[in-house]
């Protein structure tokens, strides 16, 4: 073998620029999300901070905060982690730098679009899937591009074994693609307005099937992947049990897709579905805690370093919060506990235990570890990072504890019944006033967390500025795998698609095709899916338009429309809601939080004038209320022209409107509006009220829950 035989070595370098871009985006949008969070928390504590403007009112900013936190902050965070770790785990550069850039700029464009449309009220009205249909489609496309780029990188990998983090990333990409496509099947009415294909209880199940799995596959599996890469690297210790990480990944992915119904316990969902949801959620403790235990035990032998090093502190605290949140979740999924906790602030405590504690801390740990490596310099100040940890930790604990106290207090007050069977706190506002001080404590917790985040920003900026300008690209050498396909196909007669990567690209495409198919054939499909109930009349044109205003203003962020079959609820709100009542509701507005009372049977409970003055200034009719005022509803003109288009789309979705209804929808609506307005004007309302948006809203509110009263449904 001659001396000069050339070693078959390829030199390549990792694409760290994309990681820097995503990391910077994470920090920028982290600030946006946290600022929004603190702002809307203060709005709950003091209603004046809604400023009376439609673009700054809680109803519209809360969805922006949730989308910013989940997709902008956590989203960019996992992309930064995935791009950095996958290239090193697969020992190859990303398949195509162009696709990475398209993914990056596409994702930031989506965030920008959301930041514009949500404050304007252009929303679908489904939690964590509020973005209107054009943006939803851009998300689908950008996600498939990201998936394609990732799987092609898998194909050309130089490391035969796929580390467990890679499996978690694969799980994330494929499942989120499927979830998002299935939950954003909407029929457009106009460029910025669309109605989901499903309605009522169907929409509820698909929404929360998506809602829970978005939490699972955007906020858990990718973060577990990041943990399995960055924690061993930071602790310089192998993961405690690699076998356990593989077992808990597969046990997670094989059956995870059943989650969802635990968001709908004691609602109009059939009882067996609720029990199924409960059983499944309690079972989820095992895989989740498998991950936590594996992470914490990885630090055996390095626990002394946790005292000095902020990165390890963030990891340890993050994993512990993950364990807490994933124990609290299954606990809340038990029906009797859900009866107390559902619709209260306890749920908000659970969500932020996971978001601030697990997702936030893991991103901070990754950032403090990654920034020195990316910019090849020392971290500006370790003491500041440690300070950030303690402030952030205190902020998270304050947030969670205040929400637990608020949630349980309100839950118990709602259900308090005295000896003679009457509600101890019949007036809903009493239960709100009681917990407003806790909203201040929560706002303080959020502010502390934000302050800690600011310390991170300063630290990173100072570190980057002190980085040496050396542009020497860091090259690595490695051997190309003789056959980049795993040997299983080497001798196989029938050549499978290029192994796993190819298959998953196809799977994602199939998911997108399934979505498009449903999109294009709504009538055929929806007809069969939307059972009609004899005798139940759909909303009138004006009421439907009023419902869209309800959705636009984000009323569902504080009000629910689902009376649960529990004694104290039927006493307070009237008979429990039946599934049939909401079969024409597109999107379903059962809601998940009762900052305000339930509205399922608010129809004709108060006269029109009450609503008119209540929307103008809630405190005038309900002293002590923390609801913001909606003055712009009394200035904005109702858009009567669009109503007939809305009815025709609803008709195509199977709602029993006659052609005549669609034909003179506009005339009917104007006549109905005029009737309501005349009565209000006689009681002293502004003479031009007939054309104002308050009228359709009042007509919708007065219709809520009426179908049941007239005996239309047994």
């Amino acid at each position, binding site marked *: 073998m001659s001396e000069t035989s050339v070693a078959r070595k390829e030199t390549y370098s990792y694409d760290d620029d994309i990681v820097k871009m995503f990391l910077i985006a994470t920090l920028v949008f982290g600030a946006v999300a946290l600022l929004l969070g603190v702002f809307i928390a203060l709005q709950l504590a003091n209603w004046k901070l809604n400023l009376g403007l439609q673009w700054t009112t809680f109803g519209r900013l809360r969805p922006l905060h949730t989308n910013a936190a989940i997709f902008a902050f956590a989203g960019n965070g996992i992309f930064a982690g995935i791009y950095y770790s996958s290239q*090193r*785990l697969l020992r190859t550069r990303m398949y195509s730098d162009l696709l990475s850039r398209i993914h990056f700029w596409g994702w930031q464009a989506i965030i920008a679009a959301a930041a514009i449309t949500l404050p304007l009220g252009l929303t679908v009205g489904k939690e964590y899937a509020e973005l209107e249909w054009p943006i939803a489609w851009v998300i689908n496309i950008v996600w498939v591009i990201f998936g394609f780029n990732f799987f092609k990188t898998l194909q050309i990998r130089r*490391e*035969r*074994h*796929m*580390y467990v983090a890679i*499996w978690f990333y*694969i799980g994330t990409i*494929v*499942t989120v693609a*499927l979830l998002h496509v*299935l939950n954003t099947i909407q029929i457009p009415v106009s460029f910025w307005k669309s109605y989901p294909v*499903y309605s009522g*209880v*169907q929409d509820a*199940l*698909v929404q929360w099937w998506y809602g829970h799995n978005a939490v699972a596959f955007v906020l858990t599996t990718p973060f577990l992947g990041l943990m399995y890469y960055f924690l*061993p*690297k*930071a602790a*310089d*210790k*192998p*993961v405690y049990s*690699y076998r356990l990480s*593989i077992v808990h990944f*597969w046990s997670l992915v*094989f*059956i995870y*897709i*059943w989650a969802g119904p635990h968001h709908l316990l004691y609602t109009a969902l*059939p009882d067996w*579905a609720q029990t199924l949801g409960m059983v499944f959620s309690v079972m989820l403790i095992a895989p989740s805690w498998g991950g936590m235990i594996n992470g914490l035990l990885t630090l055996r032998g390095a626990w002394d370093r946790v005292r*000095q*090093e*902020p*990165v390890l502190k963030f990891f340890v605290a993050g994993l512990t919060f993950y364990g807490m949140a994933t124990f609290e979740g299954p606990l809340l999924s038990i029906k009797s506990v859900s009866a107390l906790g559902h619709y209260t602030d306890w749920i908000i405590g659970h969500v932020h235990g996971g978001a601030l504690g697990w997702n936030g801390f893991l991103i901070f740990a990754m950032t*403090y*570890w990654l920034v*020195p490596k990316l910019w090849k310099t*020392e*971290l500006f100040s*370790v003491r500041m*990072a440690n300070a950030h940890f303690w402030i952030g930790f205190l902020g998270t604990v304050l947030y969670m504890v205040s929400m637990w106290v608020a949630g349980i207090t309100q839950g118990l007050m709602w259900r308090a019944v005295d000896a003679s069977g009457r509600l101890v706190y019949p007036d809903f506002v009493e239960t709100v006033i009681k917990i407003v001080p806790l909203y201040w404590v929560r706002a303080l917790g959020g502010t502390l967390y934000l302050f800690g985040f600011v310390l991170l920003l300063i630290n990173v900026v100072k570190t980057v500025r002190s980085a040496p300008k050396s542009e020497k690209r*860091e*090259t*690595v050498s490695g051997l190309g795998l003789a056959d980049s396909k*795993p*040997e*299983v196909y080497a001798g196989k007669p029938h050549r*499978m698609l290029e*192994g*796993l990567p190819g*298959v998953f690209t196809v*799977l994602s495409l199939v998911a997108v095709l*399934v979505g498009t198919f449903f999109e294009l054939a709504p009538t055929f499909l929806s007809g*069969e*899916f939307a*059972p009609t109930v004899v005798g139940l009349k759909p909303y009138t044109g004006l009421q439907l338009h009023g419902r869209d205003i309800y959705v636009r203003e984000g009323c569902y962020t504080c009000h629910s429309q689902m009376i649960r079959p529990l004694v104290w609820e039927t006493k307070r709100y009237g008979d429990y809601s039946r599934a049939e009542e909401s079969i024409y509701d597109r999107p379903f507005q059962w809601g998940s939080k009762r900052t305000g009372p339930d509205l399922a049977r608010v129809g004709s409970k108060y006269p029109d004038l009450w609503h008119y003055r209540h929307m103008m200034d809630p405190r005038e009719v309900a002293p002590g209320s923390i609801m913001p005022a909606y003055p712009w509803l009394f200035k904005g003109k109702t858009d009567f022209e669009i109503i007939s288009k809305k009815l025709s789309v609803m008709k195509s979705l199977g709602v029993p409107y006659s052609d005549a209804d669609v034909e003179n929808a506009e005339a009917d609506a104007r006549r109905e509006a005029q009737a309501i307005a005349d009565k209000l004007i006689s009681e002293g309302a502004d003479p031009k009220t007939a054309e104002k948006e308050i009228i359709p809203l009042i007509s919708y509110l007065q219709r809520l829950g009426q179908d049941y009263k007239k005996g239309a449904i047994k």
Partner: protein
Amino acid sequence: MSILFLLLPVALLLGFGFLFAFIWGASGGQFDDLETPAHRVLLPDSTEEFKTGEKRHV
């Protein structure tokens, strides 16, 4: 609840997708050695770490 006629097949489609991935992985020998990967990830990725040799603890 007729939506389940769509949801269940899709859920099982995804389940089988991952099952196929598991079979591809297992027959491709991905799960033969579950000890070394945990150590291999700790290897210094880039030459910079080689040069300095020591691990910069942050």
